[in-house]
């Protein structure tokens, strides 16, 4: 099932914050929305999910196959969210309910959408925990979010998003709050989960280096408009827009590569140890 956003506009408090954004995520494709904060990338994701606050006015079309998600009533939309389109947000700490065991949270959507029994859901939770490479699955599903590390919590959130085997996953900066090594693990897991089962992915980030790890195509946003839409390889090697070139420069200036110039040594540096 493919997602097609056409001429999306979002107005908040009389200001146009997203202005005519169009892009598609074909079935099974991995697409990134990239831009600085304030570029409208997260608002676009929320608009797709119908999760914008009432104060926001949305225009344009958001086609999920042939249906415009904007025309659907709340109940129908709620059936699509979680079941056909899964979501993962930035902060697993706030996305999870602190007083519910993580196993129950992983399968909540499953019970709501498919009416699985509690026992059934519990065994599915353990399966999911295993798939997410969480240690000691049978025990960990009985734990509470605060007993898990940040990376484990994000794996739980990912499991929750995947419980109903959705066709598309929308992930909004899911690794920003995590360590580099943990981030690499989560991104690899996310890419494998999407790739192995032919799901679509819409990945939102401000970091071109991160984007290059998960997506094959990138849509660059700036001040609510699309400034470039191209394969990730092209964005990295031959960016057409000045905005993309800036993002690439910034990503280079903050990430390490064998070409990185480290600061010049002070003369005293030579004699230490």
């Amino acid at each position, binding site marked *: 099932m493919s997602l097609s956003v056409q001429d999306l506009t979002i107005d908040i408090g009389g200001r146009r914050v997203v202005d005519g954004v169009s892009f598609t995520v074909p079935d099974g494709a991995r697409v990134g929305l990239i831009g*600085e*904060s304030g570029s409208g990338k997260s608002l676009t994701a929320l608009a797709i999910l119908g999760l914008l606050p009432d104060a926001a006015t949305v225009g344009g079309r958001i086609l999920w196959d042939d249906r415009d998600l904007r025309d659907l009533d709340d109940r129908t939309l709620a059936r699509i969210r979680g079941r056909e389109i899964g979501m993962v947000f930035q902060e697993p700490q706030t996305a999870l309910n602190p007083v519910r065991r993580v196993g129950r949270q992983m399968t909540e959507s499953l019970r709501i959408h498919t009416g699985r029994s509690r026992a059934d859901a519990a065994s599915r939770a353990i399966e999911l925990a295993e798939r997410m490479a969480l240690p000691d699955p049978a025990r960990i599903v009985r734990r509470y979010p605060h007993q898990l*590390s*940040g990376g484990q919590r994000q794996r739980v959130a990912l499991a929750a998003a995947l419980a109903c085997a959705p066709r598309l996953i929308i992930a909004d900066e899911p690794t920003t709050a995590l*360590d*580099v*090594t*943990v*981030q*690499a*693990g989560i991104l690899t897991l996310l890419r494998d989960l999407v790739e192995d089962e032919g799901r679509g992915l819409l990945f939102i980030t*401000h*970091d*071109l*280096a*991160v984007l*290059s*790890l998960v997506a094959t195509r990138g849509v660059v946003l700036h001040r609510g408009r699309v400034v470039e839409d191209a394969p990730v390889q092209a964005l*990295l*090697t*031959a960016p057409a827009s000045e905005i993309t070139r*800036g*993002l*690439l*420069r*910034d*990503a*280079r*200036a*903050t*990430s*390490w*590569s*064998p*070409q*990185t*110039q*480290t*600061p*010049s*040594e*002070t*003369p*005293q*540096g030579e*004699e*230490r140890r």
Partner: protein
Amino acid sequence: MTPVSASPLVRARALTRTYAGARERPFGPRPVTTALHDVDLDIRAESSLGIIGESGSGKSTLVRLLAALDAPTSGTVEVDGRPVDAAGSARSLHWLRSLTGIVFQDPYASLDPRMSVGRIVGEPLWALGAPGDHRARVEEVLLRVGLDAEAAERFPHEFSGGQRQRIALARAIVHRPRLLLADEPLSALDVSVRARIIDLLARLRTEEDLTLVLVSHDIGVVAHVCDEIAVMKDGRIVERGRTADVLARPRHPYTRELLAAAPVLPPAPDGAARDREDVGRRD
């Protein structure tokens, strides 16, 4: 062969910090976590050291001990040849406070929302009883970090995350410290803002003759600013060396893992690393 570098600015010996955790059951024993394990560390004056490691590796604990925000379970810290007694009174630590400046991770949590930026930045001068015209110094230091002098009249909520981190930096250097401790100062920021603050840190470091200790879980950040790297894991320093050496020839398996995990971009089309001077200064 400069004799100045003979004794390090910071000297830590056998630094250990343990915490008692919560009891797992009533009346049960309290599990003990060793956050920092027997760490020796010398930091040369005017050098810049990056401390990298994952969460829980002890890097923040180490910085808190160096800044006397926490007392070690055992071991000693000396700064500028004087022993640091973290358990001492606030007044007895004045000398250390005037030598050090600190920047924390979250620019939203570290600035008092009810204080004007001028008061926030000027507070160390007032608290340390620094001589001279405080207002003029605040203005000067705001310009230095790339803000307008008028920023002094405004309040933290009027600024973006990157600008707030500039305010935090201004506050950290306003009293002309010799040592700047920065604990994940870039983690909460966007990549583009991060690039600009990295530039600012590198510039302040040379202009103000600072000794910089930069804590980060991100190798990319420290590679651009620090001439030395210490890698921490499980409360120990497992590798230390010059940045270029550690990046090119990591010795410890954990360092290799860290390097492998960092997202790597393809080389710039023109081959050379692009200079960062052309990056705009807006946050």
